[in-house]
């Protein structure tokens, strides 16, 4: 409105006031929309998990839970009698949710601890030690990052089967135990940038590689190690393909695989939506908690991949 006051004044102000704000408003709206698309599905999962199956169909678009109750969560944790579960649309068959949760924890915990430790050692060898053929071997390592997991999964599956370790936790964790190319690559970047001086001083004092690694390198790399452990743990928690092949018994089935079973376990035809969503939510909880605590670290670690 005021732009009409004087042409001179208006032309000077225009790039700053109205058109600029318009564009900014549109940009903010788009960004808010993207955030909403990212987050709202999680609310919908929660809302469904707190509903009862019977009322879901009639109130399928209600923003609040339909017939609010905790039955679905009880079903997931096995706290509901079979008769009640069937009445509420569940399968009646118990799913060993606690067992799967424990398996997931074991699988992710063991592989994370071992992989981070061994990868750090390998990264140390690739960055701080000088030996013949080092760079050639490292290129080979990097090349293995290109090999699609399914390609190694087939022979690995046969190996685990021949060792008689199918459907055991050991068979499940074995291929991940030692190291992954990504972890080595990740740690190597940090080790390369560490200064040599302290290390050389320690060497003059007669420290061996073991001592240097444990007393100088590892403590100084605490932050990247924590980040790597975090990323590895989340990745392992979400892993599906390998556990699907190897861990199909109750003793070795992890949550991701268990969810798939849960989905196909409904005899009435219609899936137990609220139970399924409750299970989904509980399965995602550890990652959500980690994200709530270490969110900044996780977000910042993404830039590392892009710029390095």
């Amino acid at each position, binding site marked *: 409105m005021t732009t009409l006051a004087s042409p001179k004044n208006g032309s000077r102000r225009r790039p700053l006031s109205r058109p600029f704000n318009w564009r900014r408003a549109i940009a903010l709206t788009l960004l808010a929309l*993207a955030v909403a698309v990212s987050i709202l599905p999680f609310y919908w999962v929660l809302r469904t998990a707190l509903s009862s199956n019977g009322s879901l169909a009639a109130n399928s678009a209600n923003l609040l839970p339909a017939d609010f109750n905790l039955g679905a969560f009880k079903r997931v944790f096995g706290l509901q009698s079979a008769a009640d579960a069937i009445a509420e649309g569940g399968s009646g068959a118990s799913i060993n949710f606690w067992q799967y949760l424990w398996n997931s924890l074991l699988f992710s915990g063991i592989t994370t601890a071992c992989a981070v430790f061994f990868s750090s050692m390998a990264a140390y060898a690739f960055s701080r030690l000088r030996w013949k053929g080092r760079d050639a071997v490292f290129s080979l390592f990097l090349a293995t990052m290109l090999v699609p997991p399914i390609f190694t999964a087939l022979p690995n599956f*046969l190996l685990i089967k021949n060792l008689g370790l199918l459907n055991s936790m050991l068979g499940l964790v074995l291929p991940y135990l030692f190291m992954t190319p990504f972890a080595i690559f990740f740690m190597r970047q940090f080790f390369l940038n560490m200064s040599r001086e302290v290390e050389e001083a320690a060497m003059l004092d007669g420290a061996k590689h073991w001592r240097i690694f444990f007393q100088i390198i590892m403590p100084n790399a605490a932050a990247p190690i924590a980040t790597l452990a975090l990323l590895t743990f989340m990745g392992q928690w979400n892993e599906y393909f390998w556990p699907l092949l190897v861990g199909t018994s109750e003793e070795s089935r992890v949550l991701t695989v268990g969810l798939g079973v849960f989905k196909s376990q409904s005899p009435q035809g219609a899936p137990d939506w609220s139970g399924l969503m409750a299970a989904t939510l509980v399965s995602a909880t550890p990652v959500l908690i980690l994200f709530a605590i270490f969110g900044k670290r996780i977000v910042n670690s993404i830039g590392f991949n892009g710029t390095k």
Partner: protein
Amino acid sequence: MLGLILFYLVPTIRGIYLSFTEYSILGDPEWIGTRNYERIAKDPLFWNALGVTSEYVVINIVLQTALALGLAILMHRVAKSTLVRGALLMPYLMANVIAALLWFWMLDYQIGIINQIIEWTGLPRVAFFGSEQWAIPTQALINTWRHMGYTALLIFAGLQAIPNSVYEAASIDGSKAMSTFWRITLPLLRPVLVLVLVVTVIGSFQVFDTVAVTTAGGPVNATRVLQFYIYQRAFNEQDFGYGSALAVILFLILAIVAFIQMKFLRGNQSDLD
């Protein structure tokens, strides 16, 4: 070191060896030369899988890269807040299985919320997972939802690495916003974009989890993507030799794609130096 040799190098070589054999887990592998590959060339299901996978990859790349680039620019210009970045990253932290189940529910034909919304706008309901026409785009959409924020963050990191002086110089030369974007931002972003493209393409070719959880290859063969086909051949039909040969083909495709992208887009050189 040992672990890598044991679980990466040896399996790779063994996988290649198996692809030249007939092996049904019960007996020993039997060398049959290139017969598996001849079979693949004449296998209509393989060609279907390749076509379906390509469709998925193309939709995925176009959608994901375009959206992520837009988001990255928005973040760079109007809101650098960690909260926004964290929110956009949330889907990426979920397991594929969880993303699949979540959307399987939201896109349900009968009582899914998305179909409710579609109905309000007066359009007919869409059988997202049930129709041959929609099944693959739906899978691609789920994947885009999961990865959009992550990809945007990668590009965002690239944007922040571009020094301000470049933009100042451009504006002194009288460059308009659009031409600055096309002539300066995009070219300087190239290394990051190449990385993003390579990662996206390689990742999309290996789509499995969402398909396995939602449609399991159906309707008919509409979502029988390569990796799912390999899985079925090797583990459901115990045909490990043929499965390995298919895996070799997938491996070759990925290697070629990565090689072309690196060469064509000169990914390892930055224009910033």
